[in-house]
């Protein structure tokens, strides 16, 4: 796909987060530049942080921490507050900046999961394109056999990116699709197998059981599989993203996160809270509609793009 490679990824992340920065940082700039710290500063700060979906409890924590520092005179002017916030978030996020490393000499399976509408299928298209550009062989498996036309959607991606797809009919057993995919990958010696699963709310016990079964079948057919269980989270989601991460992790063991839709005005702040509570590696972020608008997560860039 045609894309402006000139600006590089950092540039585009910044562009993608432009709206975010406008609402998030402009506020902060107004709040901080050259001003002395007053009680109102903290009230305003609370509004900004909660507005960024960091959540009330976490916001409270951050504010208490800063109030403490202000008292100890570590913060003379409000500008220091910004640096402190940045450092706090960076510290939390850095621990989750663990890129996904895929060995070249084996079949490596990635099971992509998440609630409905977070952008799983699109993320898979982008991932397939990304791995292919690294010169790896890729296969995608259409294990979302539930949603109407989910298979067709993935098929179109497979043609766009030019990678093979393993599929069955709508309504087929997802485990059977995965079984086929792994057999096929073994036979073709494919490096990366990406599995699309149906979107499911984490509260649907039966659907979570289905995922467990898919996992089981994978592990049986290929020891160690799935090598990566990637939970796709939508940056527009509020505090429920935390519950999603918690339950998916508890039920099927999440090994990586992808945060999509960062090109809107949502702040994606919930990821900081998720990072803090579960320390699950954040692998990728989605910052646009182009095929290569999915990139490895880099904490410093993420925080910089938020604050600069």
């Amino acid at each position: 796909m045609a894309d402006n490679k000139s600006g590089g990824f950092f540039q585009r992340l910044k562009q993608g987060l432009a709206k975010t920065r406008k609402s998030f940082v402009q506020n902060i700039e107004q709040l901080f530049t050259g001003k002395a710290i007053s009680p109102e500063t903290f009230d305003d700060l609370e509004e900004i942080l909660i507005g960024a979906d960091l959540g009330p409890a976490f916001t409270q924590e951050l504010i208490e921490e800063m109030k403490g520092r202000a008292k100890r005179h570590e913060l003379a002017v409000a500008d220091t507050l910004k640096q402190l916030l940045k450092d706090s978030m960076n510290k939390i996020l850095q621990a989750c900046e663990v890129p996904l490393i895929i060995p070249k000499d084996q079949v490596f399976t990635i099971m992509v999961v998440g609630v409905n509408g977070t952008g799983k299928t699109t993320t898979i298209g982008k991932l397939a394109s990304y791995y292919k550009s690294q010169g790896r062989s890729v296969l995608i498996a259409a294990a979302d056999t539930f949603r109407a036309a989910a298979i067709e959607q993935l098929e179109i991606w497979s043609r766009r990116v030019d990678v093979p797809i393993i599929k069955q009919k709508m309504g087929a057993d997802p485990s059977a699709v995965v079984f086929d995919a792994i057999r096929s990958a073994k036979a073709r010696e494919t490096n990366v197998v990406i599995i699309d699963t149906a979107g499911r709310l984490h509260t649907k016990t039966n659907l979570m059981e289905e995922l467990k079964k898919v996992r089981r079948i994978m592990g049986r057919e290929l020891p160690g599989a799935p090598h990566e269980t990637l939970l796709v989270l939508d940056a527009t989601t509020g505090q429920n993203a935390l519950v999603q991460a918690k339950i998916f992790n508890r039920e099927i063991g999440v090994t990586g996160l992808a945060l999509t839709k960062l090109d809107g005005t949502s702040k994606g702040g919930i990821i900081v809270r998720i990072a803090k509570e579960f320390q699950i590696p954040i692998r990728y972020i989605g910052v646009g509609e182009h095929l290569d608008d999915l990139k490895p997560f880099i904490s410093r860039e993420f925080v910089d793009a938020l604050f600069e």
Partner: protein
Amino acid sequence: MFENLTEKLDSIFKNLRGKGVLTEDNVKAALKDIRMALLEADVNFKVVKDFVEDVRERAVGQEVLKSITPAQQIVKIVHDRLVHLMGDESSHLRLSGRFPSPIMLAGLQGCGKTTTAAKLALFLLAQERRVCLVSADIYRPAAMDQLKILSEKIHAGYYDAGGLPDPVQICVQAVEYAKSNGYDTLIIDTAGRLHVDAALMDELRRIKEVIRPDEILFVADAMTGQDAVNVAETFNSLLGIDGVILTKMDGDARGGAALSLKKVIGKPIKFVGTGEKTEALELFHPERMASRILGMGDILTLVEKAKTAIDEKSARELEKKIRKNEFTLQDLKDQILQIRKMGPLQDVLGMIPGFSKIKALKNAAPDEGEIAKTVAIIDSMTIKERYNYQIIDGRRRKRIARGSGTTVQDVNRLLKNYTEMRKMMKKLSKGGMKSLLRGNFSFK
């Protein structure tokens, strides 16, 4: 729905109840907790601010402090204000007599527009409207296929745009198609888009100008965070929306957006999507939703669902049987199948007042597999056995287990539960419904 928030407010009010007489201080404490709970539920920051102030003004004062049960009064104030905030009464679609009457759906990517289009179509089909669907989504791969498949499934009309490249043109053609094929309603599904995408927002505006929809419905994911309000405001100012459909209400966090939307953009929430099935679309009832938030349960929805799922005659017969202690295994199976018609059990149980309070039961909702097993076991019994469980001896149990693909233990468990159920029914028919209503009803 709203279970998390319900739990939180519950614990807050439990503390209030314990205190008996309200002081300004503990109102303050409760309000602080209510504020946190609402924020945690993604209610918009500003909305929460106003709401809490509003409740504080009403709560702290003579009226409350003098009352005998101040906690209940606070609950009532919070409840009333929640209802008010969400729009007092449910709001219906306003469709004109035009042929066809167009309804347009718009929203962000992944909020559930296409699924909702089909659900809305089914809802209107049930009102004997002749509904045609069209997808103006030329961007997302297979979006049109998705709507087409769903249309066929629910037997609604579908305008196939073929390779038409322009969404506006597609809609114009769809109106023509609907008109000449006798459809009185046209539901237009549009591509998901970011509110900051000027070109795509303009496309929506052009569709609106040409088609002049009777209803422009904004589809919003109930899990959306603080930004929900910004998105809806932008859609509203650029497009002018008539109402909101909240989707994915069958999860567990949902809701904050519901509280905010009406208040901030001044448009009612008309429907809520409550499940994976195409039938899972309900009218939005602020009253019920508020009750749910406060842990009063959603008994009205339950009753309505029961009414459509269970026919009255068989209900009366069943009642008679229970009175005479003639509740057979066949009846048990019929009952299970009838309840199944009301939707997934988890959803049904969520509507029972107080259910969300019973933490231990949270994960104990009978799972669908267990139900299928029970039905299979009863299916493997002879007619005689179903009507007279006492003849089911060891040999018969073995046969039933083999026939249903279960174990003898499974069969034993079912029979044990069944006999206990009969005992409970005997008690019930003696004590009458009153004992049930007094809360002597145990879930386990």
